[in-house]
């Protein structure tokens, strides 16, 4: 029997509408009834001044295995996630080979069992080879253990294919997560189309390229009844479409990533590829509207889009560099710093809810709660702790972050998975 007592912390458990100072008891990998007699060998952790939250879930991550282990591995990626306060991650299927059949799903789960320090929930591709044309064996992948469908990194362009995929996915109760990008409108765009792309002479990625797909998704979710989750929203216009759909009860949801509210397209003026991501950084106006969307509940999920790339891949001409940046070890702090401390758009309990209950409910995961009997996944957070980002301290295999040297307020200080501490600051 193993037991841990987290003493005197501020327990915030949105699933049970709980926010109070108290103790949390973990026994044999589960959240225990607080009235249970304390075992004699209980490990006591003083949580005074800390927030005791359900283990955080990152709904959008790239662990890069199989096939791209120079960028990241199951071991390094999950270690970095743990260091960011995450006990569960939902990994994207655009690996090499892509996760478009049950054998790759099984491979990931086996690899995670052997090497991951946190829970890894795989997603499956909607279409074969993430090519947007033929349906992947969705039912078989569901049996193998996927928790959602997505062609992330790509976007099904053909509305008929998307419609049938949604109808088919609905049979299994799987949410479809979509990277919203119209290829004809975006073309070879590498940064937000606007003043800065004009000055810098870089091909523009217009906001309409995202909004038109969010709009399409709204209509297809309404038609099919299948839940569509719009990934990494970057444009203020998308928030308006999402708000309208949700007000009518359409099963459409959306997430944002910290870089889209921490940085604008002006950051690219030095052509630093650490500011290149897809969708691109947009304007202050977009940031304001995204934050407004968080504040009024239109945006329900916070995620990282953790996308590691090797230095030699990123250190090239801007338009030739791959999209994406690291996320795990800075995302919670950036959201705390911006949404809670600086903008006061939401309180700490809602932020935790957006990282726990919301993603768990969206995909039907048995995580994100401190209910008695639930898996003992817990994150301890010091919401006011000031610290400086140092990319060289990262557990990731890669170093592609634009936040090196940033001073942030608030961070995770201990990550507990199944009752066992897997990382502490």
């Amino acid at each position, binding site marked *: 029997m193993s037991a841990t007592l987290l003493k005197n912390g501020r327990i915030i458990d949105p699933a049970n509408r709980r926010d109070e100072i108290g103790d949390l008891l973990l026994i044999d990998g589960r959240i225990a009834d607080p009235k249970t007699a304390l075992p004699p060998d209980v490990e006591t952790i003083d949580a005074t001044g800390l927030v005791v939250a359900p283990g955080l879930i990152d709904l959008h991550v790239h662990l890069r295995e199989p096939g791209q282990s120079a960028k990241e591995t199951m071991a390094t990626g999950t270690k970095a996630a743990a260091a960011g306060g995450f006990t569960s991650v939902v990994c994207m299927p655009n690996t090499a080979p892509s996760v478009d059949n049950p054998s790759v799903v099984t491979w990931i789960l086996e690899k995670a069992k052997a090497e991951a320090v946190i829970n890894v929930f795989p997603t499956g591709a909607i279409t074969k080879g993430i090519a947007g044309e033929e349906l992947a064996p969705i039912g078989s992948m569901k049996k193998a253990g996927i928790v959602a469908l997505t062609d992330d990194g790509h976007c099904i362009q053909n509305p008929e294919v998307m419609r049938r995929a949604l109808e088919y996915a609905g049979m299994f109760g799987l949410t479809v997560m979509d990277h919203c990008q119209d290829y004809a409108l975006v073309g070879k765009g590498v940064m937000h189309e606007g003043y800065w792309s*004009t000055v810098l002479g*870089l091909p523009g990625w217009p906001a309409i390229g995202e909004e038109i797909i969010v709009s399409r998704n709204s209509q297809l979710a309404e038609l099919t009844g299948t839940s569509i989750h719009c990934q990494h929203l970057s444009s203020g216009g998308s928030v308006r479409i999402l708000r309208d759909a949700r007000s009518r009860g359409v099963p459409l949801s959306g997430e944002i990533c910290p870089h889209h509210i921490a940085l604008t397209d002006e950051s690219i003026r030095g052509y630093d590829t650490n500011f290149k991501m897809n969708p691109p950084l947009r304007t202050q106006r977009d940031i304001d509207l995204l934050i407004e969307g968080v504040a009024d509940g239109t945006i329900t999920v916070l995620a990282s889009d953790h996308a590691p790339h090797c230095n030699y891949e990123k250190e090239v001409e801007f338009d030739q560099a791959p999209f994406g940046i690291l996320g795990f070890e800075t995302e919670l702090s950036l959201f705390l710093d911006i949404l809670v401390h600086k903008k006061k758009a939401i309180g700490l309990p809602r932020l935790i809810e957006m990282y726990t209950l919301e993603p768990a409910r969206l995909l039907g995961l048995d995580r994100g709660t401190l209910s008695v009997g639930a898996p003992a996944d817990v994150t301890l957070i010091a919401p006011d702790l000031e610290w400086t980002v140092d990319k060289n301290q990262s557990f990731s295999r890669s170093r592609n972050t634009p936040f090196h040297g940033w001073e942030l307020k608030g961070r995770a200080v201990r990550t507990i998975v199944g009752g066992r501490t897997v990382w502490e600051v």
Partner: protein
Amino acid sequence: MSAATPLQQQKPTNQPAPWTRKDLVGLQELSAEEITLVLDTAAAFKDVGTREIKKVPALRGQTMVNLFVEASTRTRVSFELAAHRLSADVINVSASSSSLTKGETLKDTAKNLEALHADIIVLRHSSAGASQFLAERLEASVINAGDGAHEHPTQALLDTFTVREKLGRVAGIHVAIIGDILFSRVARSNIHALLKLGAKVTLVGPSTLVPREFERLGVTVTHDLDSVLPEVDVVNLLRIQHERQRKEYFPSLGEYTALFGLTKQRAERLKPGALVMHPGPINRGVEIDSDIADSSRSVILDQVTNGLAVRMAVLYLCAGVRAFK
């Protein structure tokens, strides 16, 4: 003229800005004083070309590499000749003959050239920002010979030099830049140079190729060429290409000529003494009438000649910074 002459010209007390840049990446970051210094230095070098012995020893012993990842003949030849006139050794590397086709990164290619003691790398590249990328990573001087749709600083310097030479000043001059502004590095560099030196700039072209975003730079945008022509002192016509661009930007070259071509009829609306410029290569009968290109208004070949002097000045100034380091 000895090589020391231009150097002495930057010393007098009324010259506020000594040249401190090892690289020339773009004109956006240059001050009016720095641009003027290049133009003054170029004026001194222009004489060299008229002499019997067209060479000065300023860069003797230095090696310049023309790294042209994107094809170009006229700019490459102009830089090559400029380097020869300064007595530098010149190597030409084109994309098709380099390891870039074998997957070597630009950084590695350039580092290899530097390991061979290249002092100056002149870079032409299809990616915006490529020159800045190399400039930050090399000890060698990096001269931007055109990076994507970003900047083509020596072209704009030679354009500005030509305006100043022909009209006596740049401040207060009204320049219309006509054509495909969206994809044009020449337009961007010209806008920066002209505005910094106090000129007025109007951009003219189809709405798809002249986005309103440019107005934030301080220029005027219009789609009505006829009303602009009587107002301006200079028209700078950009090469219009239909084959390379996506066809949705404008319907045909014929319609382009009808709306934005400098036809004979339109040219009559110009002020007496207004200049016609073009960075070349020209499409006769498309953006410019053939006779207008050869008329007394046209300073197109003067631009080419001045390009040599301007590039000598840029090489000389940037190499000088490294030599004194």
